[in-house]
């Protein structure tokens, strides 16, 4: 690092600290703190993204540079690093450096520290009013319709999509006219291979699942280190829900039809990406 770079870094870091200590920064109504996200949250995640998981990001051309869109992805990995990597990928590599606004379950916002950080990173509650508010204001919104069923599934069910909720995300896209961008994430399933779910402990702690992996909880905090699997995140061609037949946000059958279409697109892409990736660990397939 040359002297000029060092000077820039020191100046930037000190100015950041001053802004935080004097409260001189802006957040949006939903709680997105761009200053904090870009300067404090993103750098350690960037190390994971670039050095540890070596994420390949594909199909960025399908993500619009402005205006609303709903990114729908598969969810896995016990700890939602897939959401973090997806957000960071778009922030660092999309030409418009778009901020992805993730939707998350209420458990996230109820948990100390995690809930606080999630709000500041731009997350909000997965509910129609919030999804539609963000889409109406032209934001890029991300959702994992599988929810806890997806992230907390057993390792032998890996890459098998769970039920996509009741299609609430399709209704929100229909009401706001936003396109749905299917997104398939390969690699997150292997970071914490969950071999069992200790349900009694989960109930005791009020959690949706309690993971037992080959490393956790046996190795204590060391068991929290994610395995260095190889990741591919691929965006597919947008699906315009309005263009479908019988596209009515209040018709459950129509919603289920579109939901299935999105789900099948992601499932098919996952199988293709898995073949392309080859082994989950080690050097990329030649």
């Amino acid at each position, binding site marked *: 690092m040359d002297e000029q770079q060092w000077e820039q870094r020191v100046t930037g870091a000190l100015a950041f600290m001053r802004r935080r200590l004097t*409260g001189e920064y*802006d*957040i949006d109504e939903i709680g997105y703190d761009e200053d904090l996200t870009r300067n404090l949250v993103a750098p350690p995640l960037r190390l994971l993204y670039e050095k540890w998981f070596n994420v390949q990001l594909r199909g960025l051309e399908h993500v619009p540079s402005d205006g609303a869109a709903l990114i729908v992805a598969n969810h896995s990995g016990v700890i939602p690093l897939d959401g973090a990597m997806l957000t960071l990928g778009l922030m660092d590599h999309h030409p418009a450096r778009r901020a992805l606004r993730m939707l998350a379950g209420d458990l996230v916002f109820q948990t*100390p520290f995690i809930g606080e950080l999630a709000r500041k990173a731009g997350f909000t509650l997965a509910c129609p009013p919030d999804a539609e*508010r963000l889409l109406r204001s032209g934001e890029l919104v991300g959702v994992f319709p599988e929810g806890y069923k997806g992230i907390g599934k057993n390792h032998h069910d890996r890459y098998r999509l769970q039920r996509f909720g009741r299609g609430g995300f399709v209704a929100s896209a229909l009401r706001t006219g936003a396109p749905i961008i299917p997104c398939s994430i390969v690699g997150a399933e292997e970071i914490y291979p969950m071999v069992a779910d200790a349900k009694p402990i989960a109930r005791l702690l009020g959690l949706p699942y309690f993971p037992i992996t080959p490393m956790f909880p046996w190795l204590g905090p060391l068991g929290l280190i994610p395995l260095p699997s190889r990741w591919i995140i691929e965006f597919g061609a947008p699906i315009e829900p309005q263009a479908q037949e019988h596209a009515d946000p209040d018709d459950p059958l129509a919603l289920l039809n579109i939901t299935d279409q999105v789900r099948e697109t992601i499932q098919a892409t996952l199988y293709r990406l898995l073949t392309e990736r080859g082994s989950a660990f080690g050097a990329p397939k030649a």
Partner: protein
Amino acid sequence: MPKVVLVTGVGRPIGARLVAKLATESDIERIIAVDMAPVAGALPDKAQFFRADIRSPAIARLLKTEKVDTVAHINVTGVPDKAGRRAANKELNVIGTMQLLAACQRAPHVKKIVLRSSTAIYGSSQRDPALFTEETEAASEILGYGKDTADVESYVRGFSRRRPDAQVTVLRLANVLAPDLHTPFGQYFCLPAVPTILGFDPRLQFLHLDDALEVFQRAVREDHPGIFNVAGSGVVLLSQAIRRAGRVPLPSLRFTAPLLAQLSGIELSAEQVQLLTYGRVVDTTKLRDTFGYTPTFSSRQTFDDFVRGRDLSSVLSPDNIAAVERALRSQLLGQKHG
């Protein structure tokens, strides 16, 4: 256009200032100012003070004899007049409003009611959407003052059904702050170390007293029936507010935070602890569209104005922090950059 306006709760600063503001309207002939407590300052000439309890039959007589056409019911408040008087305050809020509305219902001259309500009616929890609109149902159990406002608003709905000829405007105010207004929530930010809930940093909104009064005045003068959220635009994080006030946060557990506040003589109600955990932000689009008025102070400006007015000798002042930044910078980069 209203001619005779009855204002409740004039013993408190917000009611007294509303009377003064309404007195500037040339069309308003008389203002009947009511409270149990005496008014601190002098009232304008148009205004006449009646020392009365809104729960007493005197109000019904007053409405008839004075031919009151508009009632501004300001005396719904989350701030008890004395510490520890929560039960008495609830009684005044809920039973007081019930009696007042019953009196209004029987007074044929009354054509409009403007009610002070609060955004506390939405409660605060992890299951709520990021912004509350006037239609949002509270997802959590509503506590304390929030419950009072829910009760009060239910009586108002009952009144509307029985008196369809009368207009009702319900104003749900966010936390009101002003340099010269003393509220427990304001005093909370004046503690040198402000107790917060560990692991939570709620989004807060503030409403400047000047804006609150302006909206009340417009609601009295113009016709805007319905329910409206009233808050300064934008949001302030609790941690941000504490920093801007030059205070230091003191993170503590949910049950110890009120005890810590109590050590400094400030009562944090269960409802406020809930607010300090999950925060609350309301959507004010309806107010802006219908009243054609956007509060002049944003939430952040409201807070800054409050801090300036308090003249808080800051524990961590921006000047000192900037000085430390300069010193560190010259140390790390060597003298030539200093």
